[in-house]
């Protein structure tokens, strides 16, 4: 029978089989990598939550005591309740602030708003720990400048603000996440076809009817998703609860996990039990967000072409909205940076006064530049950031190509696994990785490799989002026409796909690099004296009470990050990144 088959037909399957094998090797490697990096630490975290603490004397055994301790006591319910209050408060505050700013920016004729939009990214480069420290210097009851000024001016007995309180925590973390709310809600406002609102106006509806019956209803999925994302972010956040909450005895899940690990003997099992609860909350949040964005895109298909955003004429009120922008920018960038700058020129921290002005010194900068291992620390930070960004973008572009451009069964699973780390709070991921490499000794614990693994895991979902966005935009026909021109698959990838993908890859690379260099909550459980990074040094200076030295380092760090972003933007514009 085979003799009857013409030669070309026989040779066909051979070629196919070779392509087939090659694909499966790459896919196998990707699956193995994502499973290893995302799923296994999670498994170990669960396992650890059922173990007793291991010491030199006793081996670890199975137990449910961790859960009993964690969930049996009323303390835990208080912890849960405080976490919820903190996270919801932060999410709502950031949302209201960000949405109001986004609305003013997208839908009104506020003057100079394009300048504002350009400045809106600056807060994103200020690391959370520096932002928190700056606000302590601004609003702590003892040394907070704002408090002292207000007391002086208004003759108050008591300082008006206490940053070491739940409200203070919500204020600082909410401000810190408000740029994120601003960007998300700006995107939601932009994505909506304004003629949907205009046709309601033409139907006779007034401003409130349009807002209630059309605008709000249509942006509802985006609103809920934004609040949920902010909630997840807030419940994961570590800097603010640790620096502002712990001194006042206000504990949330993240600070409780940190405390459990740092107790003696270390209560890793208990920390894991807390972590599992935290993970359940974040997973629930992320799940709802993904469901909602599915609903959002169903609405998005209804929008037409020819957007022309109409701006509401605010009349004289537009100077009020401009003033709000200015005040916001003061609160979020100028004041925090100014207070760090002031403190960095002092010998001992002192509130601004004529006397303090006489004592300006560069000592703290000298101290920082002589800091033992400073070069090493910078080197660690830079190497980690660059390698994380590079590995993440390379791996995610392959994963993304498989997910978007092939029809291999089970590819959604790959996508799901690579996105899985998004539910890990930084501290929980650090804990999981720590537990895993303590138990599986392959010689990475305490080295820079464990940090690299942690960073890559943590930021893979971000990279994936960037590559997916640009990959879906590459229309299939662009590849097909290259193939019709006679290009092989390799040539098509190199000459068509990669150049089209490049702006997206570059933007993702820049983003991952910046978030890596700011990373604190994962590193804090994994670093060793040899593998310190910048944010850890800041943390240690804070623990030692070296505020002026911390400020000097913070000022240098922010300036360096700012320059880095400028260079990245310049490079980006040169290579066609549209953001």
């Amino acid at each position, binding site marked *: 029978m085979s003799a009857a088959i013409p030669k070309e037909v026989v040779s066909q399957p051979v070629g196919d089989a070779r392509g087939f094998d090659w694909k499966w090797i790459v896919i196998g490697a990707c699956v193995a990598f994502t499973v290893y990096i995302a799923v296994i630490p999670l498994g170990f975290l669960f396992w650890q939550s059922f173990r007793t603490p291991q010491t030199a004397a006793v081996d670890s055994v199975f137990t449910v005591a961790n859960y009993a301790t964690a969930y049996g006591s009323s303390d835990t319910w208080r912890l849960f309740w405080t976490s919820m209050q903190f996270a919801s408060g932060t999410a709502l505050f950031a949302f209201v602030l960000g949405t109001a700013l986004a609305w003013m920016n997208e839908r009104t004729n506020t003057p100079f708003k394009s300048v504002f939009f350009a400045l809106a990214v600056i807060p994103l480069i200020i690391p959370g720990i520096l932002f928190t420290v700056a606000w302590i210097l601004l609003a702590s009851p003892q040394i907070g400048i704002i408090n002292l000024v207000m007391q002086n001016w208004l003759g108050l007995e008591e300082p008006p603000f206490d940053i070491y309180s739940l409200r203070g925590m919500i204020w600082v973390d909410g401000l810190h996440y408000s740029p994120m709310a601003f960007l998300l809600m700006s995107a939601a406002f932009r994505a909506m076809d304004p003629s949907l609102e205009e046709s309601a*106006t033409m139907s006779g509806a007034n401003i409130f009817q349009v807002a209630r019956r059309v605008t709000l209803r249509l942006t509802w999925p985006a609103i809920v998703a934004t609040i949920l994302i902010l909630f997840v972010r807030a419940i994961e956040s570590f800097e603010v609860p640790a620096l502002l909450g712990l001194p006042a005895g206000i504990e949330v899940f993240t600070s409780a996990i940190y405390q459990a690990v740092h107790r003696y003997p270390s209560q890793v099992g208990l920390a894991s039990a807390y972590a599992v609860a935290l993970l359940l909350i974040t997973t629930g949040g992320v799940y709802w967000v993904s469901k909602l964005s599915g609903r959002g895109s169903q609405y998005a298909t*209804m929008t037409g072409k020819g957007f022309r955003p109409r701006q509401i004429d605010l009349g004289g009120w537009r100077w009020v909205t401009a003033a709000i922008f200015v005040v916001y920018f003061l609160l979020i960038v100028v004041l925090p940076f100014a207070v760090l700058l002031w403190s960095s020129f002092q010998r001992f921290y002192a509130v601004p006064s004529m006397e303090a002005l006489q004592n300006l010194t560069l000592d703290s900068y000298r101290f920082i530049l002589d800091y033992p291992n400073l070069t090493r620390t910078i080197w660690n930070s830079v190497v980690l950031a660059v390698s994380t960004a590079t590995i993440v973008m390379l791996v995610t572009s392959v994963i993304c190509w498989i997910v978007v451009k092939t029809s291999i069964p089970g590819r959604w699973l790959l996508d799901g696994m690579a996105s899985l780390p998004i539910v890990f709070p930084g501290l929980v991921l650090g804990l999981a990785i720590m537990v895993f490499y303590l138990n599986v000794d392959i010689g990475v614990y305490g080295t820079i490799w464990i940090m690299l693994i942690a960073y890559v895991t943590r930021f893979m979902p971000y990279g994936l989002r960037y590559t997916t966005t640009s990959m879906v935009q590459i229309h299939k026909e662009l590849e097909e026409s290259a193939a019709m021109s006679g290009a092989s698959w390799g040539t098509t990838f190199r000459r068509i796909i990669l150049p089209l993908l490049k702006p997206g890859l570059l933007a993702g690379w820049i983003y991952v690099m910046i978030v890596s260099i700011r990373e604190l909550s994962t590193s804090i459980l994994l670093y060793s004296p040899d593998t310190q990074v910048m944010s850890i040094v800041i943390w240690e200076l804070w623990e030692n009470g070296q505020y002026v030295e911390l400020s000097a380092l913070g000022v240098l760090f922010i300036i360096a990050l700012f320059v880095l972003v400028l260079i990245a933007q310049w490079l980006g514009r040169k290579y066609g990144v549209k953001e």
Partner: protein
Amino acid sequence: MLTVDGLFTEYASAGGDTVKAAQDVSFTVDEGQLFTLLGPSGCGKTTTLRSIAGLERPRQGSITVNDRVVYSSSAGVFVSPNQRGFGMVFQSYAIWPHMNVFQNAAFPLEVGGRRYSRQEIRDNVMQVLTAVQLDQLADRNATTLSGGQQQRLALARALVMKPALLLLDEPLSNLDAKLREKMRFELKRLQRELKITTVYVTHDQGEALALSHEIAVMHEGRIQQIGSPRDIYERPATRFVADFVGSSNFIDGTVTGAAATPDGCVVVRTEIGDVTVRSLQSLVADERVGVSVRPEDVELTEDRPAGGNVWEGRVDQKVFLGEAVEFQVKVGARTLLSRRHPTLRTKIGDAIFVQLDPEKCVVLKVA
């Protein structure tokens, strides 16, 4: 009745200078008439329409509907769009995806100044949905409608409050060709039946000629000519209008002799020779003009015809279009386009005679 007088609408562009989108736009639409703004993309049609709607605030001018002034720069009047009571169909249709068909159409009755009872709303909505043949789909989710159905729903929503004026912005441009033809007739039938004063915006000359009582051709923010479809097509006022509405042969030349002959004919000296044209405009000797002739008015015969305005040419190209054949005929150095019945089968390269009817030659003054 709608009167637009001396309307100027401008935008501040990103660079800081102004985009002069509508400049000195004036026209009148009589009760029950369909008036079309026709022009290429970017000429300011949508801007003019949105200014009438109140969605843009003009810089200067006045807009009056049935003796009610809705905008006047001199009197300082600006009625907000939701108080104007106009129906509008957007290019994207702007169907609200979170409401079903009935709810979409009922919305204007629910939010307007006048209160309607539940029963009144039901009756009015079903009546208008029946008119656009969507009554069967009243409970359907709006997201599941096809393009044509969305278009009809948008129309129903605009009509349900019995508007004083109906504004349509390229309502057919998002439909495919076959459906567009069909909807064109439906729209015309509906407008003629309801006798509703309508302003229609399109860049499609076929649509404009088929639907309108009157057409205004716009170019770079200004109205070039206002007239009946037949006027616009047969007597274009400018070269732009002649070129944009249908296609045309333009032959440049100068007027010879002093006055016109008693029958109103003038001889224009052109590159293909002397062309006799009939002109209603007063022309002076040596004035530079253009002569515009539609391809269907360029007569071709294989034998020399009787009468004047005849040239001998050669067939250069032929395109078979089904119901017609397009000939490109070389007369001297000049190529003329002619559309003939397919029964004319002259071969490429053969000699052919070209004759122009002076009545069909339109003289355009060179600006």
